């Protein structure tokens, strides 16, 4: 098995989408697609499994809600019971409306931050990491599809030339 891959480069997201569909239809294996911005529907066209990030976000939200509830109970009721606005009921449930904004904010805070952290971890991103994109133009205005070669280099090169690629390169991957 060689480690050879094809880099097919496009300059338009619509052409890229069509090319991805054609490539999938021809049963060539797409390793990865690099784009300068999120292309709607690309994940479906590539046949990627649906993201489970939303489920994580929901769980993180519940975690935040629980944390907010615990925190307000500890601060306002248990540790140093507070009498605010003539409501010294010293009971969580009776003062609950006052805590709802904090519980809501904690829900949002946990869901947002933990979701971003999860996304970075799943994408194997961390500070000072070397960029993985094979061509700097994919951060500007070009789209790059990386496709594995299995002893069919000639066929693939001509195939991608026909999909509207502005450039087709064969690269030996390390």
């Amino acid at each position, binding site marked *: 098995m060689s480690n050879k891959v094809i880099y097919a480069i496009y300059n338009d997201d619509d052409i890229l989408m069509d090319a991805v569909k054609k490539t999938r239809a021809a049963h060539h294996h797409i390793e990865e697609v690099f784009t300068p911005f999120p292309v*709607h*529907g690309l994940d479906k066209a590539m046949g990627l499994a649906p993201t489970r990030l*939303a489920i994580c976000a*929901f769980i993180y939200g519940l975690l935040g809600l629980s944390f907010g509830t615990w925190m307000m109970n500890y601060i306002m009721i248990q540790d140093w019971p507070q009498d605010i*606005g*003539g*409501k010294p009921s010293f009971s969580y449930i009776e003062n609950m*409306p*006052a805590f*709802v*904004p904090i519980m809501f904010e904690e829900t949002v805070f946990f869901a947002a931050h933990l979701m971003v952290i999860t996304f970075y971890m799943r994408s194997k991103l961390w500070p000072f990491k070397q960029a993985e994109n094979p061509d700097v133009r994919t951060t500007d205005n070009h789209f790059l599809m990386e496709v594995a070669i299995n002893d069919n280099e000639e066929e693939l090169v001509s195939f991608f030339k026909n999909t509207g690629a502005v450039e087709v390169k064969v690269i030996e991957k390390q």
Partner: protein
Amino acid sequence: MLNKLIVIDMYTFSSKLKTFSFILMAVGLLGIGYGFLTAPKDIQEVENLLAADSHGGHGEVQHEVSNSSHKENEVAAEHKETTDAKEATEHKEHLTHVLHQLQNKPWAALYVACIFFLLISMGVLAFYAIQQVAQAGWSPVLFRVMQGITAYLPVGSVLFFIFLVLCGLHFNHLFIWLDPEVVAHDKIIQTKSGYLNFPFWIVRAAIFLFGWNLYRYYSRKNCLAQDEATDNNLYKKNFKISAGFLVFFIVSESIMSWDWIMSIDPHWFSTLFGWYVFASFFVSGITMITMVTLYLKSRGYLEHVNTSHIHDLAKFMFGISVFWTYLWFSQFMLIWYANIPEEVTYFITRIQLYNLPFFGAVVMNFLFPILILINTDFKRITWVLVMAGIVILLGHYIDFFNMIMPGTVGDRWFIGISEIASVLFFLGLFIYVVFTALTKAPLLPKRNPFIEESKHFHY
């Protein structure tokens, strides 16, 4: 669902649905009539009713505090050492009070259903106007559905206006500030009477209803004429009148909510009430668009409406449900926190006397939709959306019930024949008017400049 082979552009009102709408109206009318006929005529009947009640003692009966003419009665009722003579007059006063509440009940039931269906069509009209002004590319395939639903607006407006006139002619006591006897003994209402008086009130209602209907009429007319047009002038015209309408709407909507709902409790006020009412009927309107769209799709119409359109509608149902909750809670929390007697009575009445509908509305309008519609896949499944839609619509009916009933019938509320029959009647009328209107025009606005984008809307 998507692979229906027969493509039909014009809708035909199925005889089954038509019969169903007639049955609803007939049953509704019978029930409404029954409600009016069985309402007590004098305090003698009320006395018998109360005696039959298990919790007969008049000291236990809670009053709507805003009904100030009976305030003394309630306060006095707590003092047990009152003279017999005083007790007798109090007893009579109390009976009269309950009589008024029971006589109000069928009227209030009719009023809640009447304003609810009127405002559903207004919610749809506002949503439609926003689509026009935003020049939305996804929604033009749904325009004819929205126009069909807003066809109820003229019918609903006429019925509602007649109802308001009847209130002014003292057929009922829903708006106690319309009663000169009450105003004479009420300093707070007296200071508001420059605004809260029948002529000004009814003129405002006439202007608002007329303005909304005017926009609906011309917007639909232009949209239909655009089908045969060769340029986009009518579309641009619709853009302009829609923008104008939205400005008129947001001002008139706020005032409408004070006039038609908040003034039922004339001592109480809330500055975000307009938004709160808007959120309630806006989400109901969007839910109604979803339900009608799903129905038409299940009958093989609207071939260009795909799951992405449905998904977007469901996202709006979800989002505006959360928005409603935000306003519900904002209104509640500030009043709860400040705890000012004249403000907090509003919620005390509701929590003590309307506990189940008051918190039930939050479960139906917030907890249920947020848990069921948060899932992406569920937003595309017909039966999930129909179920969620029914709960949301019922929940917002309860919401209007909570806004109107405490000030009109107090603790005499009950969801019985009057209430259900009123809803059935207006639902039947709504179905009949809406689906008749849908047969009048092709379901696809074929010459809308964004129609291609809308047909291919997909993500």
